[in-house]
């Protein structure tokens, strides 16, 4: 009990030391809790593709835990350093080290309880607040952010582990030092860090591996699995980079006497070098958080804003009907049923297309192999259809073909299917009245060939590969503009028909004995699809904004923490400097140049990280059907600009706090 009293008194008395530590602990807890809350929210399951997304969030949680551990150890060591003098005094006044260790463990235990209680309460409030705020901002959404005891439980366990680690660190540090060392530890200086080539090399290798993984991602699903590993490599690479590279840079600056012995550089370089190890952790943390903010916001904003463009490319007219039958029969049926129901088919377009062959395309050779990391879907179109759609005449002889790589690219001049090879006569970048994007998450290639007969063997092979006993027939797509009610009526009327490739289309009541085989015509409507995509992308945007907000909060905390803790350290230095003859204007300048470096470095590194992550993001987004490079680039740049602006404001505010501390 005595120790409990002593520990709680310690915390209350040296509040200025414990407060920054407690603050960082609570905010780290809060950040983890927010992700966990989203992860365990029941409404997550309403998102399409939620499995992948939950996996991503889970990985995010792991990354953030590692991150929290690094940061907590960093800020605890800082606290410990300031506390050792007190511990040394206890020791000299007669407390055994074992007892001192017990006190510090009790202190940590109390901090842990405070963290969990305050963190949970704040978490619930923040979740509710963010939810209401975002509902207000982006409108009603089916995603509901609910408080879950499971999330709190898991994050609490994670933090219990982190605190256990801190207790071990504290006990070790107390036992390792003699009482005199304890007494002097706080004032003890640090040797200037050595620049270690191995660390630099390791850092660069880690970053290279992380970047390489990001660059070589071939498909969305691949991106998911590689994402995590790449992120880990980049985190540790960043840390090592700051530890080694910045020390190397500063040392070089110091060697250059004419540069170093200038008032501005002198103080900045020496004081940054002095605490570069500490700085490295802080800068790495800021960089990673800023990168995470960029990535989450750019992904979700990009996804949300690409919906309209995607739909415009996919829908040539507002309603699309697909029938598994030949073109003349299909058009005849639709026109007949439409007329019977008094529905006008405005701007009617129809075209015939082979069914999609899904497989891999490598060096111009197509294989009926479903490799998830590299999918291409191929459709054939006859020259006749193309001419009718575009009004242009083309002259295709023998096995000549025109290629339209709608999604992805085609480099080769030949495309081989089994033992049939097409000579690519030309490549085109669009077909009039034809969609330029498909709903499947893969590359999309359209080949215009001279006639249907040529590709029968290829279709037969594909059927065999798919294990389908039937021959694959062509499909007809009819697009037209019509009102919603007309579309509904037409759909109901058409739902009784069954189309089955080359066989005639039949009505289900035509044959009393058996229902005809085949499939009814399928409908796709712009408005339906728009609503559907909006609600699902809205869900992601919602989560993205919550995460982005959380990350920015974390960044703000770390910067604040850095400024405050360094301000306390620098207070004395600036006093001395002013006594020796540094004017307050020069103090301001010095601080500004330090702040500038610390401000720009993380942003610059984060932008480089993001550049590589961008490729992954693009793949991840195409998981949901969209791949619009230009738009994504635009939204990403916008996001970076906004986040950088917020970051700048945070920096301005916190450096004011720093200035207030060091100013006499």
């Amino acid at each position: 009990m005595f120790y409990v009293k002593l520990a709680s008194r310690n915390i209350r008395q040296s509040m200025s030391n414990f407060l920054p530590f407690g603050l960082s602990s609570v905010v780290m807890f809060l950040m983890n809790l927010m992700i966990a809350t989203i992860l365990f929210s029941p409404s997550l399951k309403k998102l399409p593709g939620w499995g992948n997304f939950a996996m991503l969030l889970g990985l995010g949680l792991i990354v953030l835990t590692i991150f929290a551990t690094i940061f907590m150890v960093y800020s605890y060591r800082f606290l410990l350093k300031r506390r050792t003098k007190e511990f040394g005094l206890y020791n000299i006044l007669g407390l055994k080290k074992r007892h001192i260790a017990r006190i510090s463990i009790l202190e940590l235990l109390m901090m842990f309880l405070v963290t969990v209680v305050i963190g949970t309460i704040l978490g619930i409030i923040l979740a509710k607040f963010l939810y209401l705020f975002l509902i207000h901002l982006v409108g009603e959404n089916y995603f509901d952010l609910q408080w879950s005891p499971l999330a709190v439980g898991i994050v609490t366990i994670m933090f219990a582990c982190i605190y256990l680690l801190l207790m071990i660190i504290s006990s070790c540090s107390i036992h390792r030092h003699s009482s005199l060392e304890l007494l002097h530890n706080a004032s003890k200086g640090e040797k200037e860090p050595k620049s270690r080539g191995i660390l630099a090399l390791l850092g660069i290798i880690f970053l290279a591996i992380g970047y390489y993984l990001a660059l070589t991602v071939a498909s969305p699903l691949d991106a998911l699995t590689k994402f995590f590993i790449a992120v880990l490599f980049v985190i540790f690479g960043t840390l090592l980079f700051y530890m080694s590279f910045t020390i190397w840079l500063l040392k070089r600056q110091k060697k250059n006497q004419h540069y170093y012995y200038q008032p501005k550089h002198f103080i900045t370089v020496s004081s940054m070098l002095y605490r570069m190890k500490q700085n490295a952790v802080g800068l790495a943390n800021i960089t990673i958080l800023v990168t995470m903010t960029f990535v989450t916001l750019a992904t979700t904003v990009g996804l949300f804003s690409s919906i309209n463009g995607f739909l415009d490319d996919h829908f040539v007219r507002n309603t699309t009907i697909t029938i598994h039958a030949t073109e003349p029969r299909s058009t005849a049926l639709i026109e007949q049923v439409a007329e019977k129901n008094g529905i006008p088919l405005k701007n009617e377009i129809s075209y015939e297309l082979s069914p999609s062959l899904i497989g891999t395309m490598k060096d111009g050779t197509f294989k009926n192999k479903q490799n998830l990391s590299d999918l291409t879907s191929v459709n054939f179109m006859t020259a006749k259809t193309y001419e009718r759609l575009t009004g242009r005449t083309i002259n295709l002889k023998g096995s000549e073909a025109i290629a339209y790589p709608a999604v992805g690219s085609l480099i080769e001049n030949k495309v081989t299917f089994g033992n049939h090879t097409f000579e690519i006569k030309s490549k085109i970048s669009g077909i009039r009245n034809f969609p330029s994007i498909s709903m499947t998450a893969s590359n999309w290639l359209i080949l215009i060939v001279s006639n249907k007969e040529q590709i029968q063997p290829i279709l037969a092979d594909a059927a065999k590969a798919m294990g389908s006993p039937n021959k694959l027939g062509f499909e007809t797509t009819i697009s037209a503009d019509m009102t919603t009610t007309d579309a509904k009526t037409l759909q109901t009327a058409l739902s009784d028909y069954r189309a089955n490739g080359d066989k005639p289309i039949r009505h289900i009541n035509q044959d009393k004995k058996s229902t005809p085989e085949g499939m009814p015509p399928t409908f796709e409507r712009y408005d339906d699809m728009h609503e559907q995509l909006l609600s699902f992308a809205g869900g992601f945007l919602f989560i993205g904004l919550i995460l982005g907000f959380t990350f920015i909060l974390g960044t703000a905390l770390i910067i604040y923490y850095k400024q405050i803790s360094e301000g306390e350290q620098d207070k004395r230095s600036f006093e001395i400097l002013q006594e020796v003859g540094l004017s307050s204007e020069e103090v301001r300048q010095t601080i500004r140049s330090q702040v500038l470096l610390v401000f720009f470095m993380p942003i610059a590194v984060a932008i480089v990280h993001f550049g590589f992550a961008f490729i992954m993001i693009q793949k991840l987004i195409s998981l949901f059907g969209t791949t619009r490079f230009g738009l994504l680039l635009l939204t990403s740049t916008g996001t970076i600009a906004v986040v950088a602006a917020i970051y700048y404001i945070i920096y301005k505010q916190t450096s004011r706090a720093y200035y207030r501390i060091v100013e006499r």
Partner: protein
Amino acid sequence: MMLLQVNHLQKIFQTRFSKEKTIALQDVNFSVEDGEYIAIMGESGSGKTTLLNTLATLDKPTSGSVILNGHDVTKIKENKLAEFRREHLGFIFQDFNLLDTLSVRDNIFLPLVLGRQKVRVMEQRLEKLAPKLNIADLLNKQPFELSGGQKQRVAIARALITEPELVLADEPTAALDFKNSESLLALLEGINETGQTILMVTHSAIAASHAKRVLFIKDGRIFHQLYRAKREAAEFMQEISMTMTNLLGTEVR
């Protein structure tokens, strides 16, 4: 030649929240000749540090003037003060005030760097100074690796490297043991013999006995002075101790 003249100096502290005033200095008058070594002695709370801080332009007096080489330092504008200190004054503090972030060499260079001096000039000056202060071997170390006496010698080097008109020292031996104090005082005496004017405040009779002249301060007033003349330090110390006991009614070690 007259270097420093202090006229009717007064300093009143008034805390923001209470009406109570503390008169730290009242009607302080004295002058310092070029090349003098003056000790200002007084008991704790007598106003020594306040006086020194006022001379050092770290603090503004309530009234009165401090004239250094014909310029009234109390009239210098706030934004020119740092520059003035850097160019005309050297400081030695009780707790050394070295920067942990800088090596010993860079700590000494500090005022010159702030004054944008050329690297070559800095090195020339240090080369001359280091052997005199016996710190030539310490230049590449960090301050935390030094003993108290070594630190104070480094601080003296930093004070002297600007070749100041006046060196101000606040209890420079207070944090040192007897042996280190002795050698430091001998060092300061030697520096004074090369023509450097030094003004030191202290409550130690031993420290004061190394000066050429001792001013006594009590309750913010200078009320007595002693000249050392040609006497040995030990002999002079006897007189200082006696003066303290008789006039101030305090025992001095």
